[in-house]
Protein backbone atom coordinates (compact mmCIF):
# COMPACT_ATOMS: atom_id res chain seq x y z
CA UNK A 1 0.00 0.00 0.00
CA UNK A 2 1.31 3.46 -0.91
CA UNK A 3 2.07 5.77 1.98
CA UNK A 4 0.05 8.98 1.99
CA UNK A 5 1.99 11.88 0.47
CA UNK A 6 2.05 14.91 2.79
CA UNK A 7 3.18 18.34 1.63
CA UNK A 8 4.11 21.33 3.77
CA UNK A 9 2.16 24.55 3.17
CA UNK A 10 3.20 26.64 0.18
CA UNK A 11 4.29 30.25 0.83
CA UNK A 12 0.86 31.48 -0.34
CA UNK A 13 -0.88 29.18 2.15
CA UNK A 14 1.54 30.08 4.94
CA UNK A 15 0.59 33.72 4.59
CA UNK A 16 -3.06 32.81 5.17
CA UNK A 17 -2.17 30.39 7.95
CA UNK A 18 -0.53 33.28 9.83
CA UNK A 19 -4.01 34.61 10.59
CA UNK A 20 -4.90 31.37 12.35
CA UNK A 21 -1.58 31.39 14.18
CA UNK A 22 -2.41 34.80 15.64
CA UNK A 23 -5.91 33.76 16.69
CA UNK A 24 -5.41 33.79 20.44
CA UNK A 25 -8.99 32.90 21.30
CA UNK A 26 -9.37 30.33 18.52
CA UNK A 27 -12.34 32.18 17.12
CA UNK A 28 -10.58 33.49 14.07
CA UNK A 29 -11.93 32.17 10.81
CA UNK A 30 -9.79 31.74 7.74
CA UNK A 31 -12.30 30.75 5.15
CA UNK A 32 -14.27 32.09 2.21
CA UNK A 33 -18.06 32.14 2.63
CA UNK A 34 -19.79 32.98 -0.66
CA UNK A 35 -22.87 32.24 -2.71
CA UNK A 36 -24.19 32.67 -6.20
CA UNK A 37 -27.88 33.11 -6.86
CA UNK A 38 -29.36 32.39 -10.30
CA UNK A 39 -32.74 32.99 -11.89
CA UNK A 40 -32.77 29.79 -13.92
CA UNK A 41 -34.57 26.93 -12.18
CA UNK A 42 -32.23 24.42 -10.56
CA UNK A 43 -33.12 20.80 -9.79
CA UNK A 44 -31.19 20.32 -6.55
CA UNK A 45 -31.03 16.51 -6.88
CA UNK A 46 -29.32 16.94 -10.23
CA UNK A 47 -27.09 19.66 -8.79
CA UNK A 48 -25.95 17.23 -6.06
CA UNK A 49 -24.90 14.78 -8.79
CA UNK A 50 -23.03 17.64 -10.47
CA UNK A 51 -21.28 18.41 -7.16
CA UNK A 52 -20.14 14.78 -6.82
CA UNK A 53 -18.61 15.02 -10.32
CA UNK A 54 -17.05 18.39 -9.44
CA UNK A 55 -15.32 16.82 -6.42
CA UNK A 56 -13.84 14.14 -8.72
CA UNK A 57 -12.56 16.84 -11.11
CA UNK A 58 -11.38 19.45 -8.60
CA UNK A 59 -8.57 17.97 -6.53
CA UNK A 60 -8.60 20.74 -3.91
CA UNK A 61 -11.99 19.41 -2.74
CA UNK A 62 -10.24 16.12 -1.89
CA UNK A 63 -7.66 17.71 0.38
CA UNK A 64 -7.13 16.97 4.04
CA UNK A 65 -4.94 18.56 6.68
CA UNK A 66 -3.04 17.31 9.69
CA UNK A 67 -0.31 18.54 12.01
CA UNK A 68 3.09 16.92 11.99
CA UNK A 69 5.74 18.08 14.46
CA UNK A 70 3.48 21.04 15.27
CA UNK A 71 3.25 22.21 11.68
CA UNK A 72 0.29 21.88 9.31
CA UNK A 73 0.65 19.51 6.37
CA UNK A 74 -1.72 18.70 3.54
CA UNK A 75 -2.53 15.75 1.33
CA UNK A 76 -4.72 14.94 -1.68
CA UNK A 77 -6.94 11.87 -1.87
CA UNK A 78 -7.70 9.93 -5.06
CA UNK A 79 -10.78 8.45 -3.45
CA UNK A 80 -14.27 9.90 -3.91
CA UNK A 81 -15.30 12.33 -1.21
CA UNK A 82 -19.00 12.94 -0.52
CA UNK A 83 -20.35 16.14 0.99
CA UNK A 84 -23.71 16.37 2.74
CA UNK A 85 -25.62 19.29 1.26
CA UNK A 86 -28.74 20.48 3.06
CA UNK A 87 -31.34 22.24 0.89
CA UNK A 88 -32.77 25.33 2.58
CA UNK A 89 -35.74 27.58 1.84
CA UNK A 90 -35.80 31.19 2.95
CA UNK A 91 -38.86 33.41 3.29
CA UNK A 92 -37.21 36.81 3.69
CA UNK A 93 -33.97 38.50 2.65
CA UNK A 94 -33.12 39.14 6.29
CA UNK A 95 -33.54 35.46 7.21
CA UNK A 96 -31.31 34.44 4.29
CA UNK A 97 -28.56 36.98 5.03
CA UNK A 98 -28.60 36.21 8.76
CA UNK A 99 -28.27 32.47 8.14
CA UNK A 100 -25.24 32.78 5.87
CA UNK A 101 -23.56 35.50 7.93
CA UNK A 102 -23.91 33.23 10.98
CA UNK A 103 -22.48 30.22 9.15
CA UNK A 104 -19.64 32.39 7.80
CA UNK A 105 -18.48 32.95 11.38
CA UNK A 106 -18.34 29.27 12.38
CA UNK A 107 -14.82 27.98 11.76
CA UNK A 108 -14.41 25.23 9.16
CA UNK A 109 -12.81 22.44 11.19
CA UNK A 110 -9.95 21.69 8.85
CA UNK A 111 -8.16 19.40 11.29
CA UNK A 112 -11.34 17.32 11.71
CA UNK A 113 -11.80 16.47 8.05
CA UNK A 114 -14.02 19.42 7.27
CA UNK A 115 -12.61 21.55 4.46
CA UNK A 116 -15.86 23.05 3.18
CA UNK A 117 -19.59 23.35 3.90
CA UNK A 118 -22.16 23.53 1.12
CA UNK A 119 -25.80 24.58 1.09
CA UNK A 120 -28.26 24.69 -1.79
CA UNK A 121 -31.15 27.09 -1.26
CA UNK A 122 -34.42 28.45 -2.53
CA UNK A 123 -33.84 32.17 -2.26
CA UNK A 124 -36.54 34.36 -0.65
CA UNK A 125 -37.19 36.00 -4.04
CA UNK A 126 -37.85 32.81 -6.01
CA UNK A 127 -34.31 32.41 -7.34
CA UNK A 128 -31.96 29.47 -6.63
CA UNK A 129 -28.73 29.57 -4.70
CA UNK A 130 -25.50 27.70 -4.04
CA UNK A 131 -23.47 28.52 -0.93
CA UNK A 132 -19.93 27.42 -0.11
CA UNK A 133 -17.90 28.10 3.01
CA UNK A 134 -14.43 26.80 2.27
CA UNK A 135 -11.15 26.75 4.21
CA UNK A 136 -8.92 29.42 2.69
CA UNK A 137 -5.96 27.02 2.36
CA UNK A 138 -8.14 24.97 0.00
CA UNK A 139 -9.48 27.77 -2.19
CA UNK A 140 -8.82 31.43 -2.83
CA UNK A 141 -11.43 33.74 -4.39
CA UNK A 142 -10.44 32.78 -7.95
CA UNK A 143 -10.82 29.10 -7.06
CA UNK A 144 -14.30 29.81 -5.68
CA UNK A 145 -15.29 31.43 -9.00
CA UNK A 146 -13.83 28.47 -10.91
CA UNK A 147 -15.76 26.09 -8.64
CA UNK A 148 -19.12 27.83 -9.26
CA UNK A 149 -18.50 28.12 -12.99
CA UNK A 150 -17.44 24.48 -13.38
CA UNK A 151 -20.29 23.19 -11.21
CA UNK A 152 -22.89 25.04 -13.30
CA UNK A 153 -21.30 23.79 -16.53
CA UNK A 154 -21.47 20.18 -15.26
CA UNK A 155 -25.09 20.73 -14.22
CA UNK A 156 -25.85 22.05 -17.70
CA UNK A 157 -24.25 18.94 -19.17
CA UNK A 158 -26.40 16.67 -16.98
CA UNK A 159 -29.55 18.65 -17.67
CA UNK A 160 -29.28 19.39 -21.39
CA UNK A 161 -26.54 17.14 -22.74
CA UNK A 162 -24.28 20.15 -23.46
CA UNK A 163 -20.59 19.17 -23.72
CA UNK A 164 -18.74 18.70 -20.44
CA UNK A 165 -16.43 21.61 -19.58
CA UNK A 166 -12.67 21.20 -20.17
CA UNK A 167 -10.85 19.39 -17.35
CA UNK A 168 -9.61 21.46 -14.43
CA UNK A 169 -5.94 21.98 -13.64
CA UNK A 170 -4.43 20.16 -10.67
CA UNK A 171 -3.78 22.10 -7.47
CA UNK A 172 -1.45 19.32 -6.29
CA UNK A 173 0.83 20.12 -9.24
CA UNK A 174 0.82 23.80 -8.23
CA UNK A 175 1.71 22.85 -4.66
CA UNK A 176 4.70 20.87 -5.99
CA UNK A 177 5.74 23.79 -8.22
CA UNK A 178 5.48 26.35 -5.41
CA UNK A 179 7.47 24.14 -3.03
CA UNK A 180 10.11 23.66 -5.75
CA UNK A 181 10.45 27.47 -5.93
CA UNK A 182 11.26 27.85 -2.22
CA UNK A 183 13.73 24.99 -2.50
CA UNK A 184 15.57 26.81 -5.29
CA UNK A 185 17.83 29.35 -3.52
CA UNK A 186 18.91 30.99 -6.78
CA UNK A 187 15.36 31.92 -7.77
CA UNK A 188 14.46 33.12 -4.28
CA UNK A 189 17.67 35.19 -4.15
CA UNK A 190 16.89 36.81 -7.50
CA UNK A 191 13.47 37.90 -6.22
CA UNK A 192 14.96 38.97 -2.89
CA UNK A 193 17.37 41.31 -4.70
CA UNK A 194 14.42 43.04 -6.34
CA UNK A 195 12.65 43.41 -2.99
CA UNK A 196 15.80 44.73 -1.28
CA UNK A 197 16.06 47.46 -3.90
CA UNK A 198 12.33 48.15 -3.56
CA UNK A 199 12.63 48.61 0.20
CA UNK A 200 15.77 50.74 0.15
CA UNK A 201 15.27 53.11 -2.78
CA UNK A 202 12.69 55.39 -1.09
CA UNK A 203 13.53 54.88 2.58
CA UNK A 204 11.01 54.00 5.27
CA UNK A 205 7.32 54.49 4.37
CA UNK A 206 5.11 56.61 6.62
CA UNK A 207 1.80 55.61 8.20
CA UNK A 208 -1.29 56.21 6.08
CA UNK A 209 -4.23 54.72 7.91
CA UNK A 210 -7.81 54.90 6.74
CA UNK A 211 -8.69 56.51 10.09
CA UNK A 212 -6.17 59.32 9.52
CA UNK A 213 -2.97 60.23 11.37
CA UNK A 214 -4.41 59.67 14.88
CA UNK A 215 -2.70 56.33 15.65
CA UNK A 216 0.71 57.64 14.53
CA UNK A 217 0.27 60.94 16.41
CA UNK A 218 -0.43 58.92 19.56
CA UNK A 219 2.71 56.79 19.14
CA UNK A 220 4.78 59.89 18.36
CA UNK A 221 4.02 61.47 21.74
CA UNK A 222 6.57 59.03 23.15
CA UNK A 223 8.70 58.39 20.06
CA UNK A 224 8.57 61.46 17.79
CA UNK A 225 10.46 59.84 14.89
CA UNK A 226 8.31 56.76 14.56
CA UNK A 227 6.63 56.18 11.20
CA UNK A 228 4.58 53.02 11.88
CA UNK A 229 2.11 51.68 14.44
CA UNK A 230 0.97 48.29 15.75
CA UNK A 231 -1.72 47.69 13.13
CA UNK A 232 -2.55 44.00 13.54
CA UNK A 233 -4.48 42.94 16.61
CA UNK A 234 -5.37 39.33 17.44
CA UNK A 235 -7.35 40.30 20.54
CA UNK A 236 -9.75 43.10 19.48
CA UNK A 237 -10.55 41.35 16.24
CA UNK A 238 -14.33 41.79 15.94
CA UNK A 239 -15.12 42.79 12.38
CA UNK A 240 -18.05 44.01 10.30
CA UNK A 241 -18.60 43.79 6.57
CA UNK A 242 -19.91 46.86 4.77
CA UNK A 243 -21.23 46.21 1.27
CA UNK A 244 -21.59 49.18 -1.05
CA UNK A 245 -22.90 48.95 -4.58
CA UNK A 246 -22.19 51.86 -6.93
CA UNK A 247 -24.85 53.71 -8.89
CA UNK A 248 -25.24 52.62 -12.54
CA UNK A 249 -24.10 56.11 -13.68
CA UNK A 250 -20.86 56.11 -11.63
CA UNK A 251 -20.19 52.46 -12.52
CA UNK A 252 -20.53 53.22 -16.23
CA UNK A 253 -18.01 56.09 -16.12
CA UNK A 254 -15.48 53.88 -14.31
CA UNK A 255 -16.03 50.69 -16.34
CA UNK A 256 -15.96 52.55 -19.68
CA UNK A 257 -12.65 54.16 -18.69
CA UNK A 258 -11.16 50.79 -17.69
CA UNK A 259 -12.15 49.20 -20.97
CA UNK A 260 -11.10 52.10 -23.20
CA UNK A 261 -7.69 52.48 -21.54
CA UNK A 262 -6.90 48.85 -20.68
CA UNK A 263 -6.58 49.67 -16.97
CA UNK A 264 -6.96 46.91 -14.40
CA UNK A 265 -9.38 47.26 -11.51
CA UNK A 266 -6.42 46.65 -9.21
CA UNK A 267 -4.71 49.85 -10.35
CA UNK A 268 -7.75 52.04 -10.82
CA UNK A 269 -9.66 51.42 -7.59
CA UNK A 270 -6.47 51.59 -5.57
CA UNK A 271 -5.67 55.00 -7.04
CA UNK A 272 -9.05 56.32 -5.88
CA UNK A 273 -8.45 54.92 -2.39
CA UNK A 274 -4.89 56.27 -2.32
CA UNK A 275 -6.15 59.80 -2.98
CA UNK A 276 -8.47 59.56 0.03
CA UNK A 277 -5.93 58.09 2.48
CA UNK A 278 -3.25 60.47 1.19
CA UNK A 279 -5.51 63.48 1.75
CA UNK A 280 -6.54 62.54 5.30
CA UNK A 281 -2.92 61.77 6.27
CA UNK A 282 -1.44 65.24 5.77
CA UNK A 283 -1.72 64.86 1.96
CA UNK A 284 1.09 62.29 1.82
CA UNK A 285 2.06 61.31 -1.70
CA UNK A 286 3.71 58.15 -0.32
CA UNK A 287 1.09 55.43 0.11
CA UNK A 288 1.51 51.77 0.98
CA UNK A 289 -1.16 49.20 0.16
CA UNK A 290 -1.12 45.45 0.56
CA UNK A 291 -2.69 43.98 -2.55
CA UNK A 292 -3.90 40.41 -2.83
CA UNK A 293 -3.32 39.22 -6.39
CA UNK A 294 -3.94 35.83 -7.87
CA UNK A 295 -0.80 33.97 -8.89
CA UNK A 296 -2.59 32.00 -11.60
CA UNK A 297 -0.38 32.34 -14.60
CA UNK A 298 -0.99 29.42 -16.92
CA UNK A 299 -4.31 28.29 -18.36
CA UNK A 300 -4.20 25.20 -16.14
CA UNK A 301 -3.67 27.37 -13.06
CA UNK A 302 -6.44 29.75 -14.10
CA UNK A 303 -8.80 26.77 -14.37
CA UNK A 304 -8.01 25.11 -11.09
CA UNK A 305 -8.96 25.13 -7.45
CA UNK A 306 -6.50 25.78 -4.67
CA UNK A 307 -5.12 28.71 -2.80
CA UNK A 308 -2.41 30.61 -4.64
CA UNK A 309 -2.83 34.27 -3.77
CA UNK A 310 0.15 36.57 -3.58
CA UNK A 311 -0.03 39.29 -0.98
CA UNK A 312 2.08 42.08 -2.39
CA UNK A 313 3.36 45.35 -0.91
CA UNK A 314 2.39 48.14 -3.30
CA UNK A 315 4.22 51.17 -2.07
CA UNK A 316 4.06 54.06 -4.49
CA UNK A 317 5.02 57.69 -4.40
CA UNK A 318 2.55 59.63 -6.52
CA UNK A 319 3.25 63.40 -6.40
CA UNK A 320 0.22 65.69 -6.56
CA UNK A 321 1.51 67.23 -9.78
CA UNK A 322 0.99 63.96 -11.70
CA UNK A 323 -2.17 63.75 -13.76
CA UNK A 324 -4.66 60.93 -13.05
CA UNK A 325 -3.55 59.32 -16.29
CA UNK A 326 0.19 59.61 -15.49
CA UNK A 327 -0.41 58.15 -12.02
CA UNK A 328 -2.16 55.14 -13.58
CA UNK A 329 0.79 54.65 -15.97
CA UNK A 330 3.09 54.61 -12.96
CA UNK A 331 0.88 52.11 -11.15
CA UNK A 332 0.63 49.91 -14.23
CA UNK A 333 4.43 49.87 -14.62
CA UNK A 334 4.82 48.99 -10.94
CA UNK A 335 2.23 46.21 -11.27
CA UNK A 336 4.25 44.75 -14.16
CA UNK A 337 7.47 44.86 -12.13
CA UNK A 338 6.12 43.35 -8.92
CA UNK A 339 4.18 40.64 -10.79
CA UNK A 340 7.52 39.31 -12.04
CA UNK A 341 8.52 38.74 -8.40
CA UNK A 342 5.17 37.66 -6.96
CA UNK A 343 6.49 34.24 -5.91
CA UNK A 344 8.64 35.83 -3.21
CA UNK A 345 7.06 34.71 0.07
CA UNK A 346 5.15 37.12 2.31
CA UNK A 347 7.15 35.95 5.34
CA UNK A 348 10.40 36.78 3.55
CA UNK A 349 9.40 40.31 2.63
CA UNK A 350 7.98 40.91 6.11
CA UNK A 351 11.42 39.87 7.40
CA UNK A 352 12.98 42.51 5.11
CA UNK A 353 10.58 45.12 6.55
CA UNK A 354 11.82 44.07 9.99
CA UNK A 355 15.44 44.32 8.86
CA UNK A 356 15.11 47.74 7.22
CA UNK A 357 12.40 49.49 9.25
CA UNK A 358 12.34 47.59 12.55
CA UNK A 359 8.77 46.26 12.14
CA UNK A 360 7.69 43.59 14.62
CA UNK A 361 5.06 40.99 13.68
CA UNK A 362 2.12 43.34 14.47
CA UNK A 363 3.59 46.52 12.96
CA UNK A 364 2.75 48.23 9.71
CA UNK A 365 2.54 51.59 8.00
CA UNK A 366 -0.88 51.05 6.45
CA UNK A 367 -4.36 49.73 7.09
CA UNK A 368 -4.99 49.18 3.40
CA UNK A 369 -5.45 45.69 2.03
CA UNK A 370 -7.20 45.37 -1.31
CA UNK A 371 -8.32 42.82 -3.91
CA UNK A 372 -9.97 43.18 -7.27
CA UNK A 373 -12.14 40.11 -7.96
CA UNK A 374 -11.88 39.06 -11.61
CA UNK A 375 -15.61 38.50 -12.19
CA UNK A 376 -17.18 39.16 -15.59
CA UNK A 377 -20.77 38.78 -16.81
CA UNK A 378 -19.57 35.73 -18.75
CA UNK A 379 -17.80 34.04 -15.79
CA UNK A 380 -20.66 31.59 -15.18
CA UNK A 381 -20.91 30.45 -18.82
CA UNK A 382 -23.95 32.52 -19.75
CA UNK A 383 -25.91 31.96 -16.53
CA UNK A 384 -27.29 35.21 -15.11
CA UNK A 385 -25.95 35.31 -11.58
CA UNK A 386 -25.45 37.38 -8.46
CA UNK A 387 -22.31 36.84 -6.36
CA UNK A 388 -22.35 37.46 -2.60
CA UNK A 389 -19.70 37.37 0.12
CA UNK A 390 -20.54 37.11 3.84
CA UNK A 391 -19.23 38.56 7.09
CA UNK A 392 -16.41 36.59 8.76
CA UNK A 393 -17.10 38.42 12.03
CA UNK A 394 -13.45 38.51 13.09
CA UNK A 395 -10.31 39.69 11.36
CA UNK A 396 -6.72 40.15 12.51
CA UNK A 397 -5.96 42.70 9.80
CA UNK A 398 -7.41 46.22 10.15
CA UNK A 399 -9.27 46.28 6.83
CA UNK A 400 -9.79 44.12 3.76
CA UNK A 401 -11.52 45.88 0.92
CA UNK A 402 -12.52 44.23 -2.33
CA UNK A 403 -14.38 45.31 -5.39
CA UNK A 404 -15.74 43.64 -8.48
CA UNK A 405 -18.06 43.94 -11.41
CA UNK A 406 -21.60 43.09 -10.35
CA UNK A 407 -23.02 40.78 -13.00
CA UNK A 408 -26.57 41.18 -11.67
CA UNK A 409 -26.65 44.98 -12.09
CA UNK A 410 -23.96 45.47 -14.74
CA UNK A 411 -22.29 47.95 -12.37
CA UNK A 412 -19.61 47.80 -9.70
CA UNK A 413 -19.77 46.85 -6.05
CA UNK A 414 -17.36 47.30 -3.16
CA UNK A 415 -17.07 45.53 0.18
CA UNK A 416 -15.10 46.45 3.29
CA UNK A 417 -14.34 43.99 6.11
CA UNK A 418 -13.04 46.19 8.94
CA UNK A 419 -11.92 45.52 12.48
CA UNK A 420 -14.37 47.69 14.42
CA UNK A 421 -12.06 48.47 17.37
CA UNK A 422 -9.68 50.24 15.01
CA UNK A 423 -11.76 51.40 12.04
CA UNK A 424 -15.25 52.84 12.39
CA UNK A 425 -18.18 52.65 10.00
CA UNK A 426 -17.75 56.41 9.47
CA UNK A 427 -14.12 55.81 8.38
CA UNK A 428 -15.40 53.29 5.83
CA UNK A 429 -18.21 55.57 4.61
CA UNK A 430 -15.70 58.34 4.09
CA UNK A 431 -13.21 56.04 2.31
CA UNK A 432 -15.90 54.73 0.01
CA UNK A 433 -17.54 58.07 -0.83
CA UNK A 434 -14.23 59.77 -1.55
CA UNK A 435 -12.86 56.83 -3.54
CA UNK A 436 -15.90 56.96 -5.81
CA UNK A 437 -15.71 60.77 -6.13
CA UNK A 438 -12.01 60.57 -7.01
CA UNK A 439 -12.58 57.78 -9.54
CA UNK A 440 -15.49 59.53 -11.23
CA UNK A 441 -13.52 62.79 -11.42
CA UNK A 442 -10.37 61.12 -12.75
CA UNK A 443 -12.11 58.84 -15.22
CA UNK A 444 -14.18 61.76 -16.54
CA UNK A 445 -11.07 63.91 -17.00
CA UNK A 446 -7.81 61.94 -16.78
CA UNK A 447 -5.78 65.13 -17.33
CA UNK A 448 -6.75 66.41 -13.88
CA UNK A 449 -3.82 66.43 -11.47
CA UNK A 450 -3.96 64.28 -8.35
CA UNK A 451 -3.75 67.50 -6.30
CA UNK A 452 -6.83 68.95 -7.95
CA UNK A 453 -8.78 65.71 -7.41
CA UNK A 454 -7.73 65.72 -3.73
CA UNK A 455 -9.11 69.27 -3.49
CA UNK A 456 -12.47 68.06 -4.84
CA UNK A 457 -12.95 65.26 -2.31
CA UNK A 458 -14.13 65.89 1.26
Amino acid sequence: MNEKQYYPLTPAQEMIYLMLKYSFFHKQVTQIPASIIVKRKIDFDLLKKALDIEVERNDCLRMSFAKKHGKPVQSFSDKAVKFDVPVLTFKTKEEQENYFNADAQIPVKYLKNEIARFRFFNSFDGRYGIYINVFHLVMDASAVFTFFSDLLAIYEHLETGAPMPAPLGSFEETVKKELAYINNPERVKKDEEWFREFYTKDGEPIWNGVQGPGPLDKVRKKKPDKKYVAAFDPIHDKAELEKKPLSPEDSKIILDFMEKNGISGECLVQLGMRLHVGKINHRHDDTYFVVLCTRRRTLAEKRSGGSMTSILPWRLILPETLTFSEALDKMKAFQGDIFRHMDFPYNNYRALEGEYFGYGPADGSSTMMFSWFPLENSTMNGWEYEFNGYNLGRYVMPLYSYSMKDASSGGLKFAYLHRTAMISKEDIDSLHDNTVKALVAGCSNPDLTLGSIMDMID
Partner: protein
Amino acid sequence: MLEQIREVICNYVDVDPETITADASLRSDLSMSSLDLINVAVEIEDTFDISLPNSDMQNITTVGELITYIEVNK
Protein backbone atom coordinates in the same frame (compact mmCIF):
# COMPACT_ATOMS: atom_id res chain seq x y z
CA MET B 1 10.48 29.87 -34.16
CA LEU B 2 6.76 30.46 -34.73
CA GLU B 3 6.07 26.95 -33.40
CA GLN B 4 7.95 27.68 -30.17
CA ILE B 5 6.09 30.97 -29.74
CA ARG B 6 2.79 29.18 -30.29
CA GLU B 7 3.67 26.70 -27.57
CA VAL B 8 4.51 29.48 -25.12
CA ILE B 9 1.38 31.54 -25.85
CA CYS B 10 -0.91 28.49 -25.64
CA ASN B 11 0.21 27.99 -22.04
CA TYR B 12 -1.45 31.26 -21.10
CA VAL B 13 -4.45 31.90 -23.33
CA ASP B 14 -7.14 29.61 -24.67
CA VAL B 15 -6.76 30.12 -28.44
CA ASP B 16 -6.54 27.86 -31.47
CA PRO B 17 -2.77 27.57 -32.20
CA GLU B 18 -3.53 28.15 -35.90
CA THR B 19 -4.67 31.70 -35.07
CA ILE B 20 -1.19 32.50 -33.75
CA THR B 21 0.31 33.90 -36.94
CA ALA B 22 2.94 36.60 -37.47
CA ASP B 23 0.19 39.17 -38.10
CA ALA B 24 -1.86 38.26 -35.02
CA SER B 25 -2.21 41.07 -32.48
CA LEU B 26 -1.28 39.91 -28.98
CA ARG B 27 -3.99 41.96 -27.28
CA SER B 28 -6.93 42.07 -29.66
CA ASP B 29 -6.59 38.83 -31.68
CA LEU B 30 -5.18 36.63 -28.91
CA SER B 31 -6.97 38.40 -26.00
CA MET B 32 -3.85 38.60 -23.86
CA SER B 33 -4.12 40.65 -20.65
CA SER B 34 -1.24 42.72 -19.24
CA LEU B 35 -0.51 39.88 -16.82
CA ASP B 36 -0.48 37.33 -19.67
CA LEU B 37 2.02 39.53 -21.55
CA ILE B 38 4.33 39.62 -18.52
CA ASN B 39 4.09 35.84 -18.09
CA VAL B 40 4.84 35.28 -21.76
CA ALA B 41 7.82 37.67 -21.52
CA VAL B 42 9.20 35.72 -18.53
CA GLU B 43 8.81 32.37 -20.33
CA ILE B 44 10.41 33.76 -23.49
CA GLU B 45 13.37 34.98 -21.42
CA ASP B 46 13.82 31.44 -20.06
CA THR B 47 13.23 29.69 -23.40
CA PHE B 48 15.46 31.87 -25.55
CA ASP B 49 17.94 33.05 -22.90
CA ILE B 50 17.33 36.73 -23.62
CA SER B 51 16.21 39.71 -21.57
CA LEU B 52 12.71 41.00 -22.38
CA PRO B 53 11.79 43.81 -19.96
CA ASN B 54 8.15 44.76 -19.41
CA SER B 55 8.75 48.17 -21.04
CA ASP B 56 9.85 46.46 -24.29
CA MET B 57 7.04 43.89 -24.11
CA GLN B 58 4.47 46.71 -23.84
CA ASN B 59 5.69 48.07 -27.20
CA ILE B 60 5.40 44.72 -28.97
CA THR B 61 1.99 44.47 -30.59
CA THR B 62 2.11 41.41 -32.88
CA VAL B 63 3.54 37.91 -32.85
CA GLY B 64 5.79 38.92 -35.78
CA GLU B 65 7.27 41.80 -33.77
CA LEU B 66 7.91 39.40 -30.90
CA ILE B 67 9.80 37.03 -33.23
CA THR B 68 11.88 39.93 -34.60
CA TYR B 69 12.69 41.07 -31.05
CA ILE B 70 13.92 37.60 -30.12
CA GLU B 71 16.03 37.29 -33.31
CA VAL B 72 17.66 40.70 -32.77
CA ASN B 73 18.39 40.14 -29.08
CA LYS B 74 19.44 36.50 -29.15
